[in-house]
């Protein structure tokens, strides 16, 4: 971290052009800086060797680089890695790298802590500390050991992306632009609990995939699991999604954590089929691994399989997500909370 100095990493091309203009440099200098930041390997501003000595000197005197190493990494027996990055005030954010066949998916955080207070979430128990900047979001990709091999990115780590929309959109722009990481938007999924104004702005301004945390189709149940339901009911969220033209390339999926005796009954299958009727989407069933102090427990394997089969029979394309990295607290929030408690 570089104190309060403005940092370069995380700036869009437009912002770099503004910096170039401010210092009276040619416009192409901004593109050169962007290429160094997002396409090449660099340790310091000194490495930007195609910039003039004077330009580098001004950059060094005025800006920080903003590329920060991880502070800890743990590796699971299944190859999943959990990275911890230190942020302000002794807090930590988590980043997971999940290898699978020829893919390496990185799960990034968008906030330090979270405001949403979902009953089943460990991150929520930290409360909310701060938003991450676009630079801090993409640093989670730039600064891990597998940086050159990342194939997919999911915004499913700590925090609610649509509660930090501006920085999340900036990070997506950097990841998907030709001057940035040049990643296909089809390789990126942003997951939200369904803050409608943020979701609509995201759908309009980005073309990456969207995932919504659903967890139950019933309003009264969802209110007990996810406080956001009292403000943005899932039925309204789905209504807005149904009204949106996703085209052929863009994907919408729903996340559904299975809680024993809570959301895994035939009536849930029926209501889910009704809720998602007419929508080309995927429903991802997720096994729940209990967190300290929660009254919820996970559904057994047999019921999960039956639930999946019943939904598929009703025309809802449903899959079961593989559990990964359980031996290293890969469930979001567990490791950083442990670290936070230790440091306090």
């Amino acid at each position, binding site marked *: 971290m570089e104190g309060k100095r403005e940092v370069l990493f995380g700036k869009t091309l437009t912002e770099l052009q503004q910096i170039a203009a401010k210092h009276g440099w040619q416009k192409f200098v901004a593109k050169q800086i962007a290429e160094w930041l997002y396409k090449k390997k660099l340790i310091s501003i000194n490495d930007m060797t195609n910039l003039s000595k004077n330009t580098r000197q001004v950059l060094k005197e005025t800006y920080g680089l903003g590329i920060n190493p991880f502070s800890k990494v743990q590796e699971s027996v299944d190859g999943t890695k959990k990275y911890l990055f230190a942020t302000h005030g002794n807090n930590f954010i988590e980043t997971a790298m999940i290898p699978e066949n020829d893919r390496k998916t990185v799960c990034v955080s968008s906030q330090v802590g979270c405001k*949403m207070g979902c009953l089943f979430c460990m991150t929520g128990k930290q409360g909310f500390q701060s938003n991450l900047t676009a630079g801090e979001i993409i640093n989670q990709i730039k600064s891990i050991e597998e940086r050159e091999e990342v194939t997919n990115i999911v915004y499913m780590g700590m925090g609610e992306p649509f509660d930090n929309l501006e920085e999340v959109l900036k990070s997506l722009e950097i990841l998907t632009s030709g001057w940035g990481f040049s990643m296909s938007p089809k390789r990126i999924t942003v997951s939200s609990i369904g803050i409608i104004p943020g979701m609509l702005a995201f759908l309009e301004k980005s073309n990456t995939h969207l995932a919504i945390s659903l967890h139950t189709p019933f309003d009264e149940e969802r209110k007990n699991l996810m406080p956001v339901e009292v403000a943005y009911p899932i039925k309204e969220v789905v209504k807005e999604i149904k009204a949106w033209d996703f085209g052929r390339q863009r994907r919408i999926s729903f996340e559904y954590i299975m809680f024993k005796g809570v959301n895994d009954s035939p009536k849930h299958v029926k209501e889910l089929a009704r809720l998602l009727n007419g929508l080309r989407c995927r429903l991802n069933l997720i096994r729940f691994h209990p967190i300290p102090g929660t009254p919820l427990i996970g559904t057994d394997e047999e019921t999960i399989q039956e639930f999946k089969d019943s939904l598929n029979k009703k025309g809802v394309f449903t899959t079961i997500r593989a559990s990964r990295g359980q031996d290293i607290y890969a469930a979001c929030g567990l490791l950083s909370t442990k670290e936070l408690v230790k440091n306090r």
Partner: protein
Amino acid sequence: MDKGLYETSITSNIEISPGVHVISFEKRHGFISGQVIKIALSYEHLPRIYSICNGTQDNEVNILFNIKEEGYLTPKLSSIPEGGKILVSKPSGSFVAGNESTWMIATGTGIAPFFSMLDSGVIACKKLIHGVSYLNQFYFGTEIRKKLGENYICCCSREQGEGIFHGRVTSYIKGQANLPKHFKYYLCGKALMVVEVRDLLISKGVPYENILAEIYF
């Protein structure tokens, strides 16, 4: 751009405590106490959600907020004079209370939806626990005391006062030997308070299904 927003004029803007304001504007749509509205200053910025903090019988809508220095909306909102324009939505949301026996637990400006309920006559079988840092933060305290009497519990963590529980809301709840488990528990405030109080209630045997929360975000 949020198509559900419409422009309205502020009819009053009063600083009721240092850094805490109540703004009012014309009520164009009926509401249920406990509901929220979205507020924005322009169509370019995402709206924020605020609880309505007055009774359903009033001709105006009141919103309680504190100024977040680093925020975009509240510093500007606090300086809008009478007659100034803001964008608001129709009321919405389902953080609404019925006739059940209910403990309402709030911190700071999280009192807003509960005051709306009480001001609308939702008083029977209700107990309100309000936690603040300083004594001047018991917003609407006099009115609430009149309505709830002993069922209004004030908790203050940084100052002491007569009849005031000295400590946080969580300390007050920890000290309750037998919480009624079949009651409803409504929580409103910052995320960390809501999560801590919810965990505490659950650890004391309250079923999570009886806990409903509204969180600021």
